[in-house]
């Protein structure tokens, strides 16, 4: 029997959050953590979490498993469980709405701040704006982000200043459009990032890289942004 300790908080009933211990029969199989959450919910339907695609594409079920953020649907028990114990908590640093569901408003507000869409004032060509394969290659490792928030909620700088520091997820997308040869708003984008918080709260500890379920590297993207800011100012 797998020992699971799950974070419970229903603000309409509970004065404060508590950890609930549950035993789950896994049948000796190396299930995904989401499967275990489904088994728990089958026994107690008041347990609340987000999920959708169950295959690491939608980014809904980002949770904290034994202290590490990740997507429950693509994290096998063999990777998450230690000493037959699994501790499930909501993503850290964001306000909890209920149980494992967090309020992502600040995360999305930071994403919105980087204006994550192509900006080009020149008239659109008849078919499409073309890129060479080399130019397109620059977007690899950037466009794959599914906005699960595992990285930003693993980042201490985002915990302390979630309203001022854009966070790894937002900055990865900021660089995705800075690196796009079809985007012509580079200077305006950089001007909005030059303050002491938006980019420069990143101290390069790479907690984001460590947890990204898609294997992306926000720290490297932030380094590129910093270099662009530096060469713009010199």
């Amino acid at each position, binding site marked *: 029997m797998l020992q699971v300790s799950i974070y419970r908080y229903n603000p309409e009933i509970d004065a404060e959050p508590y950890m609930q211990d549950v035993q789950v029969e896994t049948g000796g199989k190396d299930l995904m953590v989401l499967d275990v959450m489904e088994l728990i919910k089958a026994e107690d339907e008041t347990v609340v979490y987000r999920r959708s695609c169950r295959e690491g594409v939608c980014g809904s079920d980002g949770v904290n498993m034994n202290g590490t953020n990740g997507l429950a649907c693509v994290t096998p028990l063999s990777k998450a469980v230690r000493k037959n114990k699994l501790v499930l908590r909501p993503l850290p640093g964001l306000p909890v709405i209920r149980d494992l569901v967090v*309020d992502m*408003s*600040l995360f999305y507000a930071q994403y919105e701040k980087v204006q994550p869409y192509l900006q080009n004032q020149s008239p659109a060509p008849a078919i499409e704006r073309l890129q060479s394969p080399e130019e397109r290659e620059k977007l690899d490792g950037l466009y794959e982000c599914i906005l699960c928030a595992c990285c930003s909620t693993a980042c201490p700088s985002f915990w302390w200043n979630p309203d001022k520091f854009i966070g790894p997820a937002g900055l990865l997308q900021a660089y995705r459009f800075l690196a796009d040869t079809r985007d012509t708003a580079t200077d305006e984008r950089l001007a909005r990032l*030059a*303050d*002491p918080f938006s980019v420069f709260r990143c101290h390069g500890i790479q907690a984001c890289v460590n947890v990204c379920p898609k294997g992306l590297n926000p720290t490297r993207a932030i380094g590129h942004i910093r270099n662009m800011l530096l060469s713009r100012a010199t």
Partner: protein
Amino acid sequence: MGAFGSSDCGGGGLDMVTSATTASRTGLYDWFIQRTSAVILLAYVLVCVGWMLANSGFGYTQWSGLFAQTWMKVFSLLALVALAGHAWVGLWVVFTDYLTERMLGAAGKTIRLLAEGASVIIMLAYFVWGIKILWGL
């Protein structure tokens, strides 16, 4: 809903952040100050430790002789400027991480401003004191 109301972040997103108490008011120059000052401080430590290793068994006369030379006075002053700049940027970051309204409630801003002010005054005092020691003014 938890600690943050949705009013903080609805609609057009958050504004860019500016601050009057940073060393330079932009993140880029703060970062530049921190990196260049770190290089100067590293060079200073290497020179001092290197001199100690090269002059084993040195006494007060040799040590004060080293600091009597103009290049060492200038280098020490440069290191002192670097230390003040490095500490200003670094402490400002620490204070704006931990001494905030989120952490300390309404008093957070006052406490942070006092801490920032105190750190700047202490660093300026050390700087002036360092000049007095080095140049004997």
